[in-house]
């Protein structure tokens, strides 16, 4: 016996361990299960054959069959996306009218009545309020529809079957089948997708799902894609085909995202994440009828509001920043103009311009405000303020796409700019909400940095290559 009783305990345990069988833990679990089996067989009796089992089996066979399972998955996804997109339109416009148009006007008249100084109302209303209101109007309706639909499928027990169906595909990339679900969730919101990776209980596969979720084109980026595809890509073909071509271009970008997700998963699992511990488990739970009303309520609280709250927290300072850099002048130029000039060479290399890159720096809080920020910065620099409001550094939307196009073309945009921006919108760092979520989930500055830098590296390389080839082929 030493004079340290704690040490004695540990030493004795180390010594005594050798007298136990090497598979001590196995036997422990085995005997616990054996006891459970004894208890269950003593107190549970199968009185009559199960009515439930038969149809559960049939449903399983249908949902996981090669010929019926895959089409069902595609159909489900299409229905969910269709309900989301078509259902979100009306409330989104309503919120935009209410918060962005009416709300801003109301605040302005209130501030004017109080004789508030111009810089204060500029910073608070045109900066913070407008940006935050914009994010809420664009983000809230689709998420309030998408997430409950997703949750209903989850509660019913369908999503584990999707993970089961797609597992062999994801396994090829070193990932878990459940990543199919977190990826799909990412089409709604990457931050929500990152939180959803909690269902993956293997450390390596969970990290892969977190680091690659950004390649799912999120709700905040779809509008950017659609606008650019419509005014720059669709017009390249005869008008009866333009809708089709524009839509294909957007879907092509989303698919490219899936390709990058698989490719980078494959790469990560074979390089930096090679040594992380890995295990696989996937339970297919019994089907249970979802309780619709409760699901609507809980998924609103659980997912939508939390994500929305974080977005607001990050959007408000960005609004302030945008207003400040466009309105503070040093030596005749605004801070924004210095930034644009500094980023111009890199922007040119990537087929973009300084305005776009600065917009991405400012709009790191939310992808929703990228296009409005680009418009705000462009009107400021070109002075060709076609129908633009008089104040600078204010985000707003053009209802007429022809006006938008003439503004952008006037600022030197070409088809190359649009193509590269569509690519860069897919391949750039996650928004700060998502980065913060990644940090919260991984507790690791290292993995958060990887999550930020990996896509942006892809973006710089891909855009630069496209620009290089484009220019070599004589495009402009």
């Amino acid at each position, binding site marked *: 016996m030493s004079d340290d009783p704690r040490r004695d305990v540990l030493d004795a345990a180390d010594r005594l361990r050798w007298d136990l069988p090497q598979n001590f833990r196995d036997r422990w679990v085995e005997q616990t299960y054996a006891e459970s089996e004894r208890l269950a067989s003593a107190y549970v009796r199968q009185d009559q054959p199960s009515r439930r089992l038969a149809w559960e089996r049939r449903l399983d066979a249908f949902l996981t069959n090669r010929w019926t399972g895959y089409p069902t998955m595609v159909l489900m996804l299409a229905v969910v996306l269709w309900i989301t997109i078509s259902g979100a339109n009306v409330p989104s416009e309503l919120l935009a009218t209410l918060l962005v148009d009416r709300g801003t006007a109301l605040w302005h008249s209130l501030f004017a009545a109080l004789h508030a100084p111009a810089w204060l109302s500029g910073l608070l209303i045109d900066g913070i309020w407008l940006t935050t209101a914009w994010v809420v109007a664009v983000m809230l309706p689709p998420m309030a529809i998408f997430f409950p639909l997703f949750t209903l499928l989850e509660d019913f027990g369908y999503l584990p079957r999707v993970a089961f169906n797609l597992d062999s595909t994801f396994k090829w990339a070193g990932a878990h089948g459940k990543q199919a679900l977190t990826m799909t969730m990412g089409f709604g919101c990457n931050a929500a997708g990152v939180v959803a990776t909690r269902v993956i209980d293997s450390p390596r596969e969970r990290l892969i799902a977190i680091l690659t979720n950004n390649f799912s084109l999120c709700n905040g980026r779809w509008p950017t894609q659609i606008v650019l595809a419509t005014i720059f890509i669709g017009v390249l073909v005869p008008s009866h085909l333009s809708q089709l071509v524009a839509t294909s271009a957007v879907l092509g970008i989303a698919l490219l995202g899936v390709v990058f997700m698989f490719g980078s998963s494959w790469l990560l699992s074979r390089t930096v994440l090679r040594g992380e511990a890995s295990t*696989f488990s996937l339970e297919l739970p019994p089907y249970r009828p979802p309780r619709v009303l409760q699901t609507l309520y809980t998924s609103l609280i659980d997912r939508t509001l939390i994500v929305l709250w974080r977005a607001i927290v990050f959007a408000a300072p960005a609004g302030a920043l945008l207003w400040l850099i466009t309105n503070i002048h040093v030596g005749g130029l605004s801070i924004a103009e210095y930034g644009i000039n500094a980023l111009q060479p890199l922007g040119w290399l990537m087929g973009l311009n300084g305005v776009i890159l600065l917009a991405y720096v400012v709009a790191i809080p939310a992808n929703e405000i990228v296009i409005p920020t680009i418009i705000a910065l462009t009107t400021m620099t070109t002075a060709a303020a076609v129908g633009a409001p008089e104040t600078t550094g204010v985000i707003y939307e053009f209802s007429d796409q022809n006006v938008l196009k003439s503004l952008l073309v006037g600022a030197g945009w070409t088809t190359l700019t649009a193509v590269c921006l569509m690519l860069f919108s897919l391949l750039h760092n996650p928004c700060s909400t998502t980065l913060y979520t990644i940090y919260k989930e991984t507790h690791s500055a290292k993995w958060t940095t990887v999550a930020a830098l990996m896509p942006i590296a892809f973006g710089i390389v891909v855009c630069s290559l496209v620009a290089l080839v484009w220019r070599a082929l004589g495009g402009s």
Partner: protein
Amino acid sequence: MAEREQLEDALKLLYDALDSGETVRSADLPVSAELVAAELARDAGDGTLALTDAGREYALQVIRAHRLYETYLAHRTGHPADEWHRQAHAVEHTLDAEAVEDIARALGDPLYDPHGDPIPTADGQLPPPRGCGLSERPVGWAGRIIHVEDEPPELYQVLAQAGFAPDVRLRIEATGTDGTTVRVAGHTVTLSAGQAALVQCDGLRPDEVFDASVIRLRDLREGETAEVVSISPLVRGLARSRLLDLGVVPGSVLTIALRGPGGQPVAYLIRGATIALREEQTERIMIRRRAASEAA
């Protein structure tokens, strides 16, 4: 650091050689002068080298660090088996005594490394080697594996893939010019002479029998019922405890519930739940088929 590495490698080489009864001439070992100068080795008089007590102890500590680190890689990380040796070799020279003891504690002071080699204790004790080679056994002989040599890595990888690991039972089915055919880990494999030479075996314990009816879970067919016999020792750490927690324990009865659209993964009905497993798991789970009448 490079100097330390050279010295320690030479020391290990010398220890291994002397341990297997070979002699090493001073002229053949690159840093023999330095070893002697450090009083780790001495000239035995006839131009060959012998270890001093300090040298023997030092060598054992280097081996301890190497084998502990391999055990760590096996239990706590996802690195594949054919990388353990290389990584441990790179790390063994950088660990100080305290770091080695930390690893040992974290792993619960293991006795053997994942290849079945004994790990020297902190005070330099080393259990004597056991068993003898697989190729020396007659047809029909059954025993248990006590050691699988991890070098050369290409050959070791084939063995690990086939389920060879310490504590796994096997039986010699045939020997011939094309190699040794062995029933092991639920299937039958033929080893080349080179592969067979890497496997050390011992006889079965008195209470053990070799059960040739054991197959791998991956070989179970639809409609058949089976009982879990064991999980391969190659499944370690989190992966092992996950399987146990899910109810894959000896005695669990299972059947196939569903096959994935491409054949994988396969979902099994285990203790009332439907659990999907991947092929790399099902080829490591040993089962025995049950007759339909037993299934109830």
